[in-house]
């Protein structure tokens, strides 16, 4: 009875158009996710995965000190990248949004999209040329009698990689949100006695809040899950969580333990994203 009511209420037209998306999401997002979570309870015997429902992997991972230090490192580095990217992007976005003409701004945004045309891996490797011990930067400062400074295989290298990945996106998001601020509001703040700097803090930042937070959130998500930068530019020592996942799968086919780490990362990102969105769209 209830079921037939429910059936009658289904809109065939709407369903037809939505079905491909739903099927895609179920097949390639939901199903793998469920499988990954299920796998985290499997066992490995003689380098062979066995279906089971045991908490042993979770206990193992949670009790390991190296996991927690990796977790802290990943979270800390991603957080640092987020703060750095937001702070570096802000003055740039401010200029793009308020100092440039509409046409110039469109060109600038086009140039910010260009980096995404090339593979991130290629962009990361091109930093080698600049950052290496005998690279361009060390050569130049060598003439000045400084260095060489070790930049590759350090956290600085990792950070450079993260920013390469995220900075253009953060600037684009910040610029778009600042360019759409009602100019009257900024003028009104000047009119009521706010100088340029106070106008930034009292009107521009609150008005562009959603764009600023979403930009920062993207930066955090991309950095937290990034494997390339900490591996190639950061020297993978100490390892971040993505490197730990690789290492875990390589050593003794421990896919279930890797699944545990991946699940923890997913949960972390979910919590960060939800709280960021809550802050961004907070009703006053």
């Amino acid at each position, binding site marked *: 009875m209830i079921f037939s009511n429910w059936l009658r209420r289904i809109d065939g037209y709407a369903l037809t158009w939505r079905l491909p998306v739903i099927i895609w999401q179920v097949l390639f997002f939901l199903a793998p996710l469920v499988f990954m979570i299920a796998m985290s309870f499997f066992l490995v015997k003689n380098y062979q995965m066995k279906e089971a429902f045991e908490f042993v992997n979770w206990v193992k991972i949670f009790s390991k000190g190296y996991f927690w230090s990796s977790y802290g490192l990943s979270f800390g580095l991603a957080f640092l990248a987020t703060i750095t990217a937001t702070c570096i992007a802000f003055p740039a976005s401010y200029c793009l949004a308020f100092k440039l003409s509409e046409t110039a701004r469109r060109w600038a945004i086009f140039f910010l999209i260009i980096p995404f045309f090339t593979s991130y891996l290629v962009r990361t490797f091109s930093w080698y040329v600049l950052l290496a011990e005998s690279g361009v930067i060390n050569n130049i400062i060598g003439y000045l009698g400084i260095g060489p400074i070790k930049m590759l295989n350090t956290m600085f290298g990792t950070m450079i990689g993260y920013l390469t990945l995220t900075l253009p996106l953060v600037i684009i998001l910040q610029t778009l949100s600042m360019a759409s601020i009602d100019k009257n*509001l900024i003028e009104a703040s000047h*009119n009521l006695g706010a100088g340029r700097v106070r106008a930034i803090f009292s009107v521009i930042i609150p008005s562009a809040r959603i764009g600023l937070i979403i930009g920062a959130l993207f930066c955090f998500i991309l950095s937290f899950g990034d494997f390339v930068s900490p591996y190639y530019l950061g020297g993978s020592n100490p390892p971040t969580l993505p490197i730990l996942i690789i290492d875990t799968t390589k050593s003794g086919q421990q896919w279930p333990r890797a699944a545990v780490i991946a699940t923890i990362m997913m949960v972390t990102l979910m919590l960060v994203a939800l709280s960021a969105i809550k802050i961004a769209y907070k009703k006053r």
Partner: protein
Amino acid sequence: MNEGQIVLENVTKNFGGSVAVEPINFEIKAGEFLAIMGSSGCGKTTTLRMLAGLETPSSGEIRLNGERMNELKAHERETPLVWQTLALFPFLNVIENVEFGLKMRGVEKPERTERALKWLKRMEIEQFANRSIDQLSGGQRQRVALARALVTEPPVLLLDEPLSALDANLVVRMQSVLTRLQKELGITFVYVTHSQSEAFAMADRVVIMSAGVIEQIGSPREIYRSPASRFVAEFVGTNNIISGNIKEIKGNTMICNTAFGTIESKQEDRNTRHQKGNDVELVISADMIELSQEHTFSENEIQLQFVAEEFTGSVVTLYFEDANKNELIVQKQQREIEPLELTYGCQIFAHWNPINVFCLPDVKTE
């Protein structure tokens, strides 16, 4: 030197190549309600923005209390502006909006709240103090904008068409709020508008601008009864502008040949500047024309045919034509024309007092 509170001396403004404001000169007295009126693009808003420091004059000087203020930045001036869009901060609630100006001046929180509350009370919106802006009606937002601008007790308040977004009956209510406020505070209001009714209802003096030039400055009555140029005559009220040629001048009486026949004008001062034979433009205000069914045998009388009417509430605008299809517009109260029993095409007699006919000063001599 006893000059006004605000003085604009040969002030101009160019944007790129285009001229927004030609050299303009006028003074605003302390405590005056001055309206700057004109159609869009006439330079009225630009003039106001120069007073607020949001635009820098291209040349000339703006003085406040005798001191040049061209170089003062917007945030260094005490000339708050009420925006057409109100420009209330959507991320702040009502009382925080009102406190904004005080906060920027470094007033401590307790005093800030106290002064802001005082203004919310005065504007009768204290019950909305903690509401967000989007929960308010148009009229309430208007009051918040006024409170926000006035909380710092400035000597001058600038208003840029603040009532244009409100509906008609609310406009009338806010007009009385504004005039009462201005009288009570005794500060200068500079009010930019395109609406004649707003300007005339509230202002002590009106500046009429067109294409960056001041056409006339005067009290609403002066402007309404004796427009200084054809532009003003067309812009203000409903006027009949009739071209003619001076046939005769006797003292302050001038007789002109026009398309409607000879028209007589009696003016104390204005007509003496003209000479016999000059082409002039005569202005007869549409509400100064009397109508009757019968011949009145007065000197200034013409016979007309009723062709159209425009009914806007209690006032009716009537369109007439003479035998040669020259149009004359008459404005009357609805109850005044009822006894005339007008029907389309009927003949009627129009007459007027010559003292209500005056000619525009800009004489076409060439």
